[in-house]
């Protein structure tokens, strides 16, 4: 059996543990909070422990043989471990943040239950090698996302959460139709047997719809900004850090480690991503609500990663994988800081905010760190990720792609600067704003520090990404 239980623990501890939380919640709320944090940390530790076997060539495999090619399985290869670490690390910090933030809301049992179930389903989707299993976990994340987005029970947020679920379910049903037609052609749902086999274009288009819906890329992105008035940890977990990046990771899992696409797709998908990045960056520059700006920024950065992963060069793919980690940390941090600003000042319009650095210095510092990483300035992790993405676009032979993304990168600088300087610098407008609970401040600082740390020690994530990119044996 070896250490396969690591993978199983990584997935099923949060998945099944989440059912304990409502019960625990009735006994003692702190125990419930810590338990949910513990479950996500367990999956983080398991992912880290499973890193060594993945990097030395024999990744951990769990296998359940079933008839007619329906056999279910999990595989902990480098790509999965990197994504799992990124997601569980960010989710743990976000849960720790919600200790301080979420106290004011009621029915918290449901909140912690849904967050932990969400993380379990994300881990399942990351590790699974069977298309149907991936779809199953994929759908569970959509359901959890619906319950979490509509968590504060206000009429508006529930309607928008419903819309988000419909877009997600519609996209994923199209993807399931794609999976079934793949099953018709290849007779099996197992991704490992499909490595390197071709798939025809309309089928790829079907699967792409699901990914675009989940990753909130332009044509199907409007559910993300619309649901930005959910509680901050929820929008950070779903909009910024985990679910959106899961969509792009699944693209990498299906079309980098799985099917062999026609070369036309290395132009079409990056083009979609480029259009999405440009328009969402444009919209972000115009927006005045701080939470919606962060949502558009998340849409823009995810399109960056999608471009990297889909442009068909090794450095682009490795850049995409690294920027999943960087984006999870930085966008998560930005969402949390925006949530803290909204919580302490009660104002979301950036024209009515100003000079908060004076009495909220730590929030300003962490917002600055995350913003500089998203902008791609050294010595933050975002710098290396952005260089690799643009180098990938250039190496793929489409210079226009690199120029489009250069424009999007410049607009990212402009809108993030606009928010950063208007909210935190200049004359102080909101005098009563102070940094509330220490959990919120500590978690924001952790995320800010991590963006800096991953920049200084870039060789750790980049070794994994390079190893994965080379082992794909595709270029």
């Amino acid at each position, binding site marked *: 059996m070896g250490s396969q239980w690591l993978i199983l623990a990584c997935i099923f501890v949060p998945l099944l543990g989440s059912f304990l939380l409502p019960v625990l919640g009735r006994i003692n709320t702190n125990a419930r909070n810590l338990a949910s944090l513990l479950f996500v940390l367990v999956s983080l530790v398991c992912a880290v422990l499973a890193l060594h076997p993945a990097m030395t060539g024999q990744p951990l495999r769990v296998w359940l043989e079933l008839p007619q090619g329906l056999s279910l399985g999990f595989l902990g290869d480098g790509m999965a471990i990197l994504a799992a670490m990124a997601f569980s690390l960010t989710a743990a910090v976000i849960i720790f943040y919600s200790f301080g933030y979420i106290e004011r809301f009621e029915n918290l049992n449901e909140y912690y239950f849904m967050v932990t179930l969400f993380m379990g389903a994300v881990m399942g989707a990351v590790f699974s090698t069977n298309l149907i299993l991936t779809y199953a976990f994929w759908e569970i994340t959509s359901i959890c996302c619906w319950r979490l987005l509509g968590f504060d029970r206000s009429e508006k947020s529930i309607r928008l959460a419903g*819309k988000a679920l419909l*877009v997600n379910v519609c996209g994923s049903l199209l993807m399931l139709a794609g999976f079934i037609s793949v099953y018709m052609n290849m007779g099996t749902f197992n991704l490992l047997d499909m490595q390197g086999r071709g798939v025809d274009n309309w089928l790829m288009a079907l699967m792409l719809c699901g990914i675009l819906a989940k990753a909130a890329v*332009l*044509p199907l*992105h*409007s*559910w993300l*900004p*619309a649901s930005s008035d959910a509680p901050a940890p929820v929008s950070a977990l779903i909009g910024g850090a985990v679910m959106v990046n899961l969509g792009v990771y699944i693209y990498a899992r299906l079309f980098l480690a799985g099917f062999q696409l026609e070369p036309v797709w290395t132009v079409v998908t990056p083009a979609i991503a480029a259009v999405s990045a*440009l*328009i*969402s*960056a*444009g*919209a972000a*520059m*115009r*927006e005045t609500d701080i939470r919606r700006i962060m949502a558009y920024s998340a849409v823009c950065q995810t399109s960056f990663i999608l471009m990297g992963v889909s442009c068909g060069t090794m*450095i682009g793919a*490795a850049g995409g994988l690294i920027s999943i980690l960087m984006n999870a940390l930085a966008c998560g941090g930005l969402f949390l800081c925006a949530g803290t600003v909204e919580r302490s000042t009660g104002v979301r319009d950036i024209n009515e905010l100003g*000079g908060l*650095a*004076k009495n909220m210095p730590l929030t300003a510092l962490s917002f600055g760190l995350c913003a*500089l990483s998203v*902008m791609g*300035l*050294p*010595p933050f992790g975002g*710098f*290396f990720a*952005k*260089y*690799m993405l*643009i*180098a990938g*676009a*250039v*190496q793929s032979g489409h*210079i226009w792609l*690199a*120029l489009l993304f*250069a424009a999007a*990168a*410049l*607009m990212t*600088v*402009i809108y993030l*600067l*606009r928010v950063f*300087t208007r909210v935190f*610098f*200049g*004359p*102080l407008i909101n005098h009563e704003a102070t940094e509330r609970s220490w959990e919120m401040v500590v978690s924001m600082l952790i995320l800010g520090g991590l963006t800096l740390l991953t920049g200084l020690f*870039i*060789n750790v994530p*980049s*070794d994994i*990404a*390079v190893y994965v990119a080379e082992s794909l044996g595709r270029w």
Partner: protein
Amino acid sequence: MNAFSSLIASGGGLGLLLLMVALPALLGLACLALSRRSYGGQALLFFLGATVNLILALFILFGEEQTVLLPWAGFEINLALRIYGFSRLMLILSAVLFFLSALYSVAFMRRENRSGQVFFYCLLALAFTNGVFLANNFVTLLFFWEGILAVCFAAQLYNDRPKVRTAVKTLVLGAAGDIMFIVGVAVTAVQSGTLMMDVVSGLAAEGPGALGFIGLALGALARACAVPFQSWLPDAAAEAPLPFVVTLPVCLERVAGAYLLLRVTGGFYALAPGSALSIALMIVGVLTFLAGGMMALIQRNLKRVLAFVAIGQAGLLLLGAGSAVPAGSDGALLSLFAQVPALMCMFFAAGQVEQSTGSADLRRLGGLGHLMPFTGVAFVLGAACAAGLPPFGSFFADQLIFSAVNDADILLYIGSLLGLFFTAAALMRVGATCFFGPVRLPEGMEREQVKEAPGAMALPTVLLAVAGLGMGVLIGPFSSAVRNVTGSTVEGWSFSLVLCLIYVIALLLAVLNHITGHRATGEALRAADHIHYLPGLYRVYDAAERHYLDPYNILMGVVRVYSWLCRMIDRCLSWIYENLLERLVDRGSGALHDLNTGVVNQYLLWTLGGLAFLVLLFLVLV
């Protein structure tokens, strides 16, 4: 002494090179850590950083070539540092200049607040600039390159609105240049197949390579503050603390920009002298030279005038490098050595004037030469060197550049002469109003309050002023020393007499114009009004006054329109989801709902109708 050098040498390049980058940064952090009260400690650390950097630079100047290679982020992205001719020269130049500015800053910051922060940013800037000179891998160069931008942005972040707006302008313009720089690096890596800078040389600058060249050149222009990226420098010079302005934007950034420009046009890409790219580069150079000179002519703030003169000099440098002729690039290198010290000297003088009189507004200053003789003399010497008067080093540098420009294109030559004329006229105007004529002081200031600068501030100012003169006098030995350090093969230069005469006539014209304007308007400040209100020129000046020509405002205008368009697209997309689909589904389900009226015979009719439909279907299918 030699034990120490042998240790460093034997310790391999690793110790020395990393020290050059890490030491200033660490000392900077120490400065930041020390609290405001112990100003002495901060000043000591700052000065220690400058001196140690100077000593190390000297060692590198005379040591032999060393390289460092540390794996970093895969795909040949590794921390590679290397010492070779050209980087040695740049290191020693920036080290000397930083040392002098440290001397000045220590004295200057005694009466200013935030000294710890300013020292920290200056040392960090030095660390990144050393990194740029030593870098041997494009991504390492990029890393330090954007680090300079980050420092420049962070240093201007204060709590009042105008300073923050300038910081944003700095970062946006800098980021625009750097992003093009990233694209340029990526294309060059594809063209040459490697990221190691010592391997890349002589790439063809047409086809895709052209984009690589343009990318790298734009990156260099961003730092050297040439036309598309220049409008942040005057605002920064007026608002940011003076020691920081002198250290980074005026000295280190322009040296780094020039270094990269010369390596790109000379080393990485084989730029053909008459090629389209070279002409384009020279046009940008002339535009920058003219814009700098003309705008300097009408400024009313002393530091803004100097900032625009600096922009003009960047244009001159660009002209030299863009000509792609050995004479031109050597001229550019020499002008770097001459112009930067002169400009720093003038800024130091301006700093002394502002600190002792409390204001840098030319309308309220006059005749300070009588009260501050040393500062006056230093300013005049610096202005003369910046203008390019014969005995100074910049005169010889300008000859090389002007001869190269003359060979390339006559229009460009005339343009650069005009630029020279405007720069000289502006410097004459500002020197005359500030230091000559009747004494004029801001309200509430008496003559006794205005004191000459203390020794520690006066010394570097005078030294820099004399440097330009000394360089001019010993131009022969100096240029041969520079040549054997950089190992370039060109022997001597021939100065054609005709071009020198035209050059001197242009300068005399500037002097003549100043005197006539002075006599006509009665005061030196309005000596250039007759140029200012020329019929055609007036509208251009008016547009510039209202910042219409400022590239940052143009960019922001485009951004505002574009973002409005994107918001419309986003709105209609979400309208489709929110209203259109919902209404369609409601209408469809509403129609179905009405079908069900609840009357039984209605159901019977529907059932029989369904059967008939089945029979029909059956007939069709069979």
